[in-house]
């Protein structure tokens, strides 16, 4: 059936406006990153009169951006690997077995979604300081402490999504694998995990993005050497100057890995959400 004109026009107008709204900051980020400092400090210009790539070289000098990049990469990467691995085992147990306390476990996992991050900030700070005092293991200010902290955000969501995804993998498949002589772990790794790759990728992307973008814990729990990008970008404003062109250039550079990864894998994310969240 052909759509009526009213629908076509509403669609055209709405989608145009929305695209403008969505892309406006992206345009500002890209165009301002190519302007000299005088231009970004004065009245805004839609079309840069003076194009320069200098900010892209300066960003590495003004602050140790490469170090922050490395810290973010290590922390987000490790948090992702840990949370996905742990979530795979937990979700498999919940999806395939019935056991006492299963409901308590899933409800607890789900309800941690509602806890405000601020609730954990001070207690984790206290725990890390105490562990440090007692054992000499410096969690506070270290990358390890931050990795552990980031599991707070990604683990419940990962478990929750993966349960839904594993449920959508037919049970007959892993039963058949078990008949063929696979143990439960064999069935998990040879059958369930391969069949659930889209869901696992979706969860990994989500976990990486949360860790890469986290601000609160990064700003309280890092020091000079472990600072991540989230905190590092604040270094471009000094008392006298705000290097907006460099801030925009650095924002673009730190966004590229996640945006590229996300857009490449978004197909999986959509499938993953269909199976995991909308059930």
């Amino acid at each position, binding site marked *: 059936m052909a*759509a*009526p004109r*009213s629908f076509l026009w509403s*669609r055209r107008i*709405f*989608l145009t406006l*929305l695209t403008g709204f*969505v892309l406006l*900051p*992206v345009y*500002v980020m890209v165009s301002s990153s190519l302007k000299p400092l005088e231009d970004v400090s004065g*009245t*805004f210009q839609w079309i840069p009169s003076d194009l320069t790539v200098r900010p892209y070289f300066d960003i590495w000098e003004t602050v140790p951006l490469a170090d922050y990049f490395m810290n973010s990469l290590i922390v987000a990467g490790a948090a992702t690997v840990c949370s996905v*691995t*742990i979530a795979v*085992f*937990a979700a498999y*147990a919940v999806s395939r*077995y019935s056991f006492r306390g*299963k409901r308590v*476990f899933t409800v*607890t*996992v789900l*309800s941690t979604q509602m806890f*405000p*991050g*601020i*609730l*954990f900030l001070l*207690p984790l700070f206290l*725990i890390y*300081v*105490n562990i440090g*005092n007692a054992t000499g293991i410096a969690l506070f200010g270290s990358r390890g402490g931050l990795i552990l902290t980031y*599991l*707070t955000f990604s*683990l419940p969501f990962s478990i929750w999504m993966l349960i839904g995804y594993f449920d959508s993998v037919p049970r007959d498949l892993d039963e058949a694998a078990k008949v063929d*002589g696979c*143990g*439960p*772990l064999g069935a998990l790794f040879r059958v369930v995990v391969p069949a659930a790759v889209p869901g696992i990728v979706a969860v990994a992307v989500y976990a990486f993005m949360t860790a890469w*973008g*986290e*601000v*609160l814990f990064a700003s*309280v729990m890092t020091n000079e050497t472990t600072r991540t*990008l*989230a905190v590092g*970008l604040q270094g471009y404003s000094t008392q006298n100057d705000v290097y*907006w062109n460099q*801030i925009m250039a650095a*924002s673009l550079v730190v*966004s590229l890995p*996640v945006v590229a990864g*996300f*857009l490449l894998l978004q197909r999986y994310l*959509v499938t993953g*959400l*269909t199976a995991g969240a*909308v059930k």
Partner: protein
Amino acid sequence: MTLTAASGTGERTARKNSPGAAPRTRRSGRLRRIGLPYLLLLPALLLELLVHLVPMAIGIVVSFKELTQFHIRDWGTAPWTGLDNYSLAVDFNAPVGEALLKSFLTTCLFTLFSVGLCWLLGVAAAVFLQEGFRGRGFLRTIFLVPYALPVYAAVITWAFMFQRDNGLINHVLHDQLGLTDTPPFWLIGENSFITLLVVSVWKGWPFAFLIIMAGLQNIPREIYEAAALDGAGIWQQILRVTLPSLRPVNQVLVLVLFLWTFNDFNTPFVLFGKAAPEAADLISLHIYQSSFQTWNFGTGSAMSVLLLLFLLVVTGAYLLLTSRGRKATDA
């Protein structure tokens, strides 16, 4: 892992051997069946304990203590104060309680608008992109960009756009359209509420869009065809078929959006810095400010616990209401 692998091979060799070994095998098999789920859960349980349950317990304990910077190294020795922190937080006539109440009400209003707008944009975009047309996949990708960008990079760009003297917003409103006599401030004063809302909706609506798109895929085509046969136009199909079918998806989505928006810290923190203007003082940032700027951790913890209780009650009531609604429609 080693345990299950060993018992696995044990079972296999036992089956090959005499039937006399059968009872032992069955017992170890049952033990494995019961023990295995817990073994698989163990890492998750330990971590949940370490990063969620223990901190929560400590948070509750601290909320009954007078914890300032003097006791932070050894917080167990901080003096007990009973309910003092709580009465300070809810004494709405005193400065601390009054500020908390104001921040709470601001957050409620902000969440209402933000969730509503995110949902509206998400539904509209998903519905308009449902029918095939050229450039649909491209638009879908574009629309996910705000979701993919790291919060600080995106929000800092908005902060730049909202600068009074060199930002894009005032350039358009004041210089180009001439709508204002003097360029307004966006990051301080009353306007900051609008600023926060715009940024929050920009960042948040793609998630609604993603979930609703996923939900749309589960609506069978036949329902639309049946509706079309009955003479329903495309607008009526959206109103009568699409929106009602999305109900279960919407219930989960609205709850998740509510919790995320209500607890949001990153957006106001990057936009305004450690102290948000009063009009945009969201509760998470307010509690952070109360704990880490004034070094009064006990009061901050009491505020966190109160916030958690509020969220528990709202979520519980919401789940109860929506599940009852679902039962009613099923019957």
